[in-house]
């Protein structure tokens, strides 16, 4: 059995990181499945077959969203950037640039943990920093 989601020795990774890696792998698989169904739907002319595929694709949408929500809950910086981009009207690239800049700056101000750290993540406790 392969463990392709790991780029570092799994035994050296904390549980939290391994769980995140599994969910990232799931997210990729769900996105791939959504794309596959999209292609099949584009070429299938049988109405009944299309209905089944559309239903199955809906399942993949749900799985994708659940995996994404899980990951966003675990990573405040990712969540903050996502909040600046998702479900917003207007220029996506512009929102992305702004969201990244604001979120990274804020994380630095509040003393967010170093990536991969197992610290308690307390950092700064000044008002406006958290």
């Amino acid at each position, binding site marked *: 059995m392969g463990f392709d989601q790991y780029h570092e020795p799994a035994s050296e990774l904390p549980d939290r990181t391994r769980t995140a890696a599994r969910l990232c792998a799931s997210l990729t698989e769900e996105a791939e499945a959504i794309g596959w169904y999209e292609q099949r739907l584009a070429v299938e002319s049988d109405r009944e077959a299309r209905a089944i595929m559309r239903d199955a694709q809906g399942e993949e949408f749900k799985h994708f969203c659940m995996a994404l929500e899980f990951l966003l809950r675990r990573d405040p910086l990712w969540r903050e950037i996502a909040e600046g981009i998702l479900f917003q009207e207007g220029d996506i690239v512009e929102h992305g640039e702004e969201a990244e800049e604001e979120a990274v700056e804020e994380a630095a101000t509040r003393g967010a*943990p*170093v990536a991969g750290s197992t610290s308690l*993540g*307390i950092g*700064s406790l000044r008002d406006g920093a958290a």
Partner: protein
Amino acid sequence: MSHLLREFAPITEVAWGLIDEEARERLTPALAARKLVDFGGPHGWEYSATNLGRAQGLPDPPAAGLTAAQRRVLPVVELRAPFSLSRDELRDADRGAADVDLDALDDAALCMATAENRAVFHGWEAAGITGIAQASTHEPIQLGDDCERYPRHVARAVEALLSVGVAGPYGLALGPEPYTRVLETTEHGGYPLLEHLRKIVAGPLVWAPGVQGAVVVSLRGGDFLLEVGEDLSIGYDAHDDRTIQLYLVQSFTFRVATSEAALALTP
């Protein structure tokens, strides 16, 4: 694997979650300095020193005709608070017990927070840290035991800071005894003293274990810097069949950039 060696501890993910959460809950109310001073980092365990941006001339360079200087840095200190937990208690945590005995962790957390506050506000000579109260260029004001005079003392402190161009808002770190007195006191007309003091400083009033008396500090930023390498973390030391030895750890240093930006109120 990090230097904390958490993976070697015979502790389940559920119990680690409980331990970490308990530590956060106990540390957060007591970490007064982090509510008032600038925070740099965390830079990680490998971070060893803060650049002071200064150099000191060195005599006798290795060849004639040269001048030499050595950069000055402020090395971080490692603070460690060991504690021991019962394996039976942690097994009960795995069973879903809601009253797990983590008293030793609570004591270690308070000890760590007190030490951090003391270093920041009163200094730590062996570590090369000058505290805010020590560095202050203002004449200290005696706080005393009479709570009714506290607003006057704090207002005088604010005026002293304003008179040298140090803008607000300000924060007030109160040692445990004066803090309790303030909480217990209402002024004539029933107005809580706590609220009155907050209005004077236009900022937070924080419980500060480790602080002697009180300290008024400017919150404008850039005056006081707590530089953290490894932020507060819990690591694993050893275990036997009954207990697990863990520790709270952090590495940090602290420096005052503007000595006139705070004023000490002595007990």
